[in-house]
């Protein structure tokens, strides 16, 4: 297993006071909380920080950890020395109410079940002495905007914490095929009943909640249920009006561009956003693209326009 540098993870020195450790923890917990953070590795970092704090906040565990010595590096291959914990008196349980399934093999081997730190912390009912509903599990699922429009089936790989008969906690990979319902939008949850943690004492299993996020799409941008597409048009289409083809999530449609349109103008395609009882709309945002004046004839055309169509687009800028 890999050695964990708990001081490095917390960004504190080895002689940091308990107060400094607490302050560092508070700051990092806010930064990497999975419900708050935008960092892509937030969940892993949050777990790591919690594990480090679980050890460093407890003077007994911290002293035992310090005793491993300072020659270790983060990620280095590690086996606990046979008598690493000799001479320590432990009063508390290994886990102080924190969820043990969040912690690494490294933590488990030092402070987990079977070691001297095992104790009161385990009497939280997960061993099945009494009836307790299974925990709810949470995961994020990344889908395309098209999947949200059409509905889809996605295969998910989840790491599920599992407690073996000896009380050791490991992660078991689990593959799930899940139907993504039509019309789901970013930030919404899909609940899969009974797919969370197992209940004990005959109580029901917990649920699995999947929170949906959209993959970035090169064409379609979604705001709640409305969909935005940039629609390039020629200057004459914008000035004279015309019918142009626009991609929508449901396929290509014809859109009438009114005469006298300008760049940035939004044309609405009612009801062509994400489906729902009150479906979203699609907006085509016009972008006028000028053809390059890359030969004599084209340059002559532009020059003729300049002569015959005097026009000051900056009339309202003042001065």
């Amino acid at each position, binding site marked *: 297993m890999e050695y964990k540098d708990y001081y490095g993870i917390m960004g504190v020195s080895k002689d940091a006071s308990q107060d400094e450790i607490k302050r560092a923890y508070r700051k990092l917990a806010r930064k990497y909380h999975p*419900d708050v953070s935008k960092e892509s590795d937030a969940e892993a970092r949050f777990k790591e920080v919690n594990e480090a704090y679980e050890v460093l906040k407890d003077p007994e565990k911290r002293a035992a950890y310090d005793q491993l010595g300072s020659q270790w590096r983060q990620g280095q291959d590690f086996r606990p020395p046979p008598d690493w914990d000799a001479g320590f008196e432990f009063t508390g349980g290994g886990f102080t109410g924190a969820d043990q399934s969040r912690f690494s093999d490294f933590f488990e081997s030092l402070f987990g079940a079977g070691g001297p730190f095992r104790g009161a912390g385990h009497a939280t009912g997960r061993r099945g002495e009494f009836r307790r509903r299974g925990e709810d599990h949470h995961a994020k699922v990344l889908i395309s905007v098209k999947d949200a429009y059409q509905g889809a089936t996605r295969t998910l790989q989840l790491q599920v914490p599992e407690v073996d008969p000896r009380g050791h906690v490991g992660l078991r990979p689990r593959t799930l095929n899940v*139907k993504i319902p039509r019309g789901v*939008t970013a930030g*919404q*949850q*899909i609940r*899969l009943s009974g797919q969370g943690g197992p209940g004990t004492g005959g109580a029901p299993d917990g649920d699995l*909640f999947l929170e949906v996020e959209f993959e970035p799409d090169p064409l379609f*941008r979604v*705001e709640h249920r409305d969909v935005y597409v940039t629609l390039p048009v020629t200057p004459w289409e914008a000035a004279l009006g015309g019918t142009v083809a626009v991609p929508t999530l449901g396929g290509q449609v014809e859109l009438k561009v009114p005469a006298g349109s300008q760049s940035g103008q939004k044309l609405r395609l009612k009801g062509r956003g994400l489906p729902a009882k009150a479906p979203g709309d699609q907006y085509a945002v016009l972008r006028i693209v000028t053809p390059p004046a890359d030969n004599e004839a084209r340059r002559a055309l532009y020059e003729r326009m300049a002569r015959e169509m005097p026009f000051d687009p900056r009339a309202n800028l003042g001065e």
Partner: protein
Amino acid sequence: MAEGERNRPLSGVLMDEELTLTLGELCRSCDLPAEELLAMVQEGLIEPVAVEGRTWRFAGTAVRRVHVAVHLQRDLDVNLSGAALALDLLDEIRALQARLRVLESRS
């Protein structure tokens, strides 16, 4: 684990605004006692979307708000008002980021 679980696609319930839950259903969905949910209603953290007779109905989206509030209270030691404030700000950030992506795509 049942045989064939790998292949059979699971259908879930979409927790959106179209789904409504009674207080009892919300309690079961969030695995919380009614008193805690009532405290969240009082804080304005969740709001009933309708009253049918003497029964409150909550939108399915309330479940996520309750989950996040519970996580924030447990992990960051904030109180209910702090969790409610964080939730409102997180919603605002999400809306602004979506808006920003729409605007950035025009350039």
